[in-house]
């Protein structure tokens, strides 16, 4: 049985934590994936999740997004349990999963405009987001013609058209080149500087972002 559970706190609580979890456990298909994960993040802070495959990084992110209910423990946003207001919490989340969620027949700009409208953002920001990820020349290109790395960039651009304070990124660096990595770092830096939070499951050190690390899957 794999167990984890180092208690994690991102320093002293000088300001109140926006996102806090207490003794989170995850059981999938009868198997304990992790237990007793406690973390706290204040505005402007980032946290990296590390751990071997199957240690529950994606599950933890999905839990924090409100997609997956914890088998035990609570998640609080500004002191309130998110289980009390799941719909409200979902609106706060900018989630980047392993999949890019792009429609192959729609252009990059159309894909982004759709996600902007879905999340109540404005589609004019799609152009700025496309620029920020270095996709300016590909705005009108159908997503099926993009390379893996370009698709990943478009998926990251999606975060920029939403106004979500909490970014949950699952392997955001997948297929990204150096330039893409730098642009992701820059987007993260801006997000954190404006008081956003980010939790990132990654094996790559992101430039310009300093973050604490939570290791999952350390055998107890």
């Amino acid at each position, binding site marked *: 049985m794999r167990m984890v559970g180092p208690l994690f706190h991102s320093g002293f609580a000088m300001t109140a934590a926006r996102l806090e979890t207490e003794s989170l456990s995850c059981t999938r298909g009868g198997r304990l994936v992790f237990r007793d994960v406690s973390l706290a993040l204040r505005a402007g802070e980032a946290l990296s999740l590390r751990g071997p495959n199957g240690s529950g990084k994606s599950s933890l992110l999905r839990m924090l997004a409100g997609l*997956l209910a914890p088998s035990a423990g609570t998640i609080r946003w500004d002191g309130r349990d998110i289980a009390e207001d799941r719909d409200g919490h979902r609106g706060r989340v900018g989630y980047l999963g392993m999949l890019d*969620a792009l429609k192959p027949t729609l252009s990059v700009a159309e894909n982004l405009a759709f996600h902007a409208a*879905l999340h109540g953002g404005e589609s004019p920001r799609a152009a700025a987001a496309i620029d920020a990820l270095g996709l300016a020349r590909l705005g009108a290109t159908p997503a099926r013609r993009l390379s893996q790395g370009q698709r990943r960039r478009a998926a990251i651009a999606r975060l920029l058209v939403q106004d979500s304070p909490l970014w949950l990124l699952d392997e955001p660096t997948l297929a990204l080149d150096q330039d893409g990595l730098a642009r992701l770092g820059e987007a993260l830096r801006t997000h954190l500087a404006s008081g956003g939070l980010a939790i990132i499951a990654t094996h790559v050190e992101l430039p310009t972002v300093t973050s604490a690390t939570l290791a999952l899957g350390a055998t107890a």
Partner: protein
Amino acid sequence: MNAMRSLIGRDLRLALRSPQESLTVLAFFAMAAVLFPFGVGPEPQLLARVASGVLWVMALLAALLSFERLFQLDHEDGTLDLIVLAPAPLELLVLAKCIAHWLTTGLPLIVIAPVAALMLNLPPEGIPVLLLSLLLGTPTLSLLGAIGAALVLGARRGGVLLPLLVMPLYIPILIFGVSAIEASIAGLTPRPHLLLLAAIQAGAIPLAAIAAAAALRQAAE
């Protein structure tokens, strides 16, 4: 509302750029209308007698063809997670999917229904009621189909399971749809049957929205 509109707009655009789905439904419906007279023989009276039932059964089966992929593609490419995470109520987004589904499958089917009715020798006085009953009944097919499509998401061989789940729910629509046409051909009023179809649709709107949204949330786990 904005989110609903953008989801409908996106689905319509996707259907326009890769219209295989809508065309499959239409082709099935049209081909059945062509083949049926060969199967039962071209006697006008016999065809006229069974036309209303055949048309409605064909519409049901044609609709069934299109449900499996209703949420499947969004599920496979990760879009479903983002739809579930959208601030708008998921129930409304499910309705948006149903509206787009009906616009791309149900509505084209209604457009070609008069031609199919002619091929099956449906008495002319039955045609307006056929269209009206399809107009009231096919949106319900999309709504109930959405429940089934959401329930089988992630299941292996969902395509086999889906008709078994949805077919029983379609039987009342079939009965009242056919009865309305039969009544009008017999010179009676089709009103009560059409009102019942409308009532089923009115009931299916909230039911499908709530049930399919719950199933989608489950699938997102």
